[in-house]
């Protein structure tokens, strides 16, 4: 048994009882990263020496008997979308390839305060836009269960590094399923907290009314441990909510007896893979055998989720990403060349007698914006910025943006009605298990549809998580999604933990 086979809770226990040091734990994980990550590609950057230095400092403080934080000595991987002071934060974009964050995001600050060992930065779809991590400007990430397949996305590196046992805990972000979908496809546990539960300060913004940071790990217990460290109100994020953070680990013992699970008939409609459906239905039977009741509910507007999501998310993205203009951050196109090109064009037009057109040529500043963005952004980011700009433009704003916001309200009402009758909603996280790398890259719309079951939770702002619930015949993991009313993360985690006490899906490991 290697240290990398243990859960975070088990490691924490060993560290606390001095049966292992943080240096030993960190060394075990960094050795594994060195050995396996050339094949998986989960990390964009990792610095074993820096991680070991942090571990040494924590070990020294432990030896001196100083008080330590809740994650003391545990390695944590962070999605490369959260600012960490003085360090590169690339968002897997050429635009920010050299961007060093001037401050810590609140979540990174909280991890440091909890005495976690920051292992390295994980890969993602550029600016978190995508469902396969193939939109990273730097490298693909491979699914540890089958290296020919995608890990899901956008937190593909975050999920794959846990699945490959290269980190016991991992931080992702979820705008439309970006924690839950890769967790499902990589066979790990991942939680998207309620909107406002975790501070977004210092998270590079994609869609501000949807983005949430959350934990990934093997077990519900580890997920609870990490969520406890990062949740809470932050005066620097006006959308973070001042609701007390419960002790998530203490809540795990809550029995499933008397808990009512909602099954939405829309989750079992066409498009759901047969093997996934069988595994999910079997998981529901397991919940029933543990004392849960089951009741059918309806989420009739769920089918508009993807359409509403892509309008809302892209609109917010087009606005948020306006800051990358070649002036404030990141990549800047060659100014000399732009000036020379414009001068040549002007000369040409004047020589041909088109003086009026020569006057209307773009200014060097507008050209600088346009070219810096063209060179810095990848194709998917450009598509979303275009879609969002279109949806917000004069003449289309009401038909698309406002209409999508109304659909969003209807979706939220569906949930409010369902949660008046049930405690949790249970269904598949994704319609299929992991797809092949390259399978969907030529069809953006097909890629958007992988978020079918996950986007609604973001639009509604509720809490949701994915836990492993089975495997396909070919050995690919299947994920079960649990959804809960706002701020009922404790309920989600307790149900997931109870399930994991009686099942062993979360203990299966890929052979690497």
């Amino acid at each position, binding site marked *: 048994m290697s240290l990398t086979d243990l859960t975070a809770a088990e490691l924490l226990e060993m560290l606390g009882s001095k049966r292992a040091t943080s240096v030993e734990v960190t060394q075990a994980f960094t050795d594994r990263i060195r050995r396996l990550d050339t094949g998986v590609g989960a990390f964009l950057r990792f610095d074993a020496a820096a991680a070991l230095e942090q571990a040494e400092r924590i070990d020294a403080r432990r030896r001196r008997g100083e008080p330590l934080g809740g994650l003391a000595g545990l390695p944590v991987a962070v999605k490369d979308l959260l600012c960490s002071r003085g360090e590169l934060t690339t968002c897997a974009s050429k635009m920010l390839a050299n961007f060093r964050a*001037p401050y810590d995001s609140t979540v990174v600050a909280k991890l440091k305060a909890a005495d976690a060992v920051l292992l390295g930065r994980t890969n993602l779809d550029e600016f978190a836009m995508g469902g396969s991590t193939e939109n990273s400007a730097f490298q693909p990430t491979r699914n540890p269960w089958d290296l020919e397949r995608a890990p899901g996305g956008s937190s593909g590196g975050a999920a794959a590094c846990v699945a490959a046992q290269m980190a016991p805990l991992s931080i992702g972000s979820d705008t439309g399923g970006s924690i839950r979908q890769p967790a499902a496809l990589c066979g790990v546990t991942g939680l998207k907290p309620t909107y406002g539960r975790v501070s977004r300060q210092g998270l590079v913004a994609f869609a501000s009314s949807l983005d949430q940071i959350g934990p990934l790990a093997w077990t519900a217990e580890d997920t609870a441990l990490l969520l406890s460290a990062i949740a809470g109100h932050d005066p620097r994020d006006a959308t973070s909510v001042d609701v007390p953070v419960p002790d998530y680990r203490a809540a795990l013992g809550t029995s499933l007896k008397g808990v009512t699970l909602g099954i939405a008939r829309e989750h079992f409609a066409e498009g759901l893979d047969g093997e996934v459906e069988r595994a999910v239905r079997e998981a529901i039977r397991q919940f029933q055998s543990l004392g849960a009741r089951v009741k059918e509910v309806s989420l009739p507007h769920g089918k508009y989720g993807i359409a509403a999501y892509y309008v809302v998310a892209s609109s917010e993205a087009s606005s948020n990403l306006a800051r990358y203009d070649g002036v404030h951050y990141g990549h800047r196109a060659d100014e000399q060349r732009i000036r020379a090109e414009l001068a040549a064009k002007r000369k040409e037009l004047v020589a041909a007698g088109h003086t009026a057109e020569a006057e209307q040529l773009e200014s060097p500043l507008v050209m600088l914006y346009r070219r810096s963005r063209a060179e810095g952004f990848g194709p998917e980011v450009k598509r979303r910025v275009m879609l969002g700009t279109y949806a917000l433009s004069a003449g289309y704003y009401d038909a698309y943006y406002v209409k999508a916001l109304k659909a969003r309200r209807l979706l939220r009402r569906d949930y409010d009605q369902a949660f008046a009758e049930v405690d949790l909603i249970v269904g598949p996280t994704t319609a299929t298990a992991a797809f092949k790398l390259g399978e969907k890259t030529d069809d953006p719309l097909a890629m958007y549809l992988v978020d079918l079951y996950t986007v609604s939770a973001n639009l509604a702002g509720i809490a949701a998580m994915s836990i492993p619930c089975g495997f396909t015949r070919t050995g690919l993991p299947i994920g079960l999604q649990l959804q809960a009313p706002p701020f009922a993360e404790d309920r989600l985690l307790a149900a997931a933990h109870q399930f994991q006490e009686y099942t062993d899906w979360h203990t299966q490991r890929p052979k690497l």
Partner: protein
Amino acid sequence: MSLSREQVEKVALLARLELSDAELSAMTTQLQAIVGYVDQLAELDTNGVEPMAHPHDFTNVFRPDRLEPSFARTAMLATAPHADEAFYLVPAVLGQ
């Protein structure tokens, strides 16, 4: 609503993106498919439904009006590709 190449070109200007001819063609086809899919929202009856821009109902979250240290200008300007000690630098806009 079908999207024309000219419209896509106009949106690219609004979005401050320079697109090559090939990109413009591909973008037009892809956006047509995506917008075609999104058009299903039109069938929803949303009469009397309040738009939901945000999951929370609260508005105007204020912090106490206290002076607090802010980031140093130099630290913020350090993220810019081109700046002097006080300002972001851009190509001349006037008097070219």
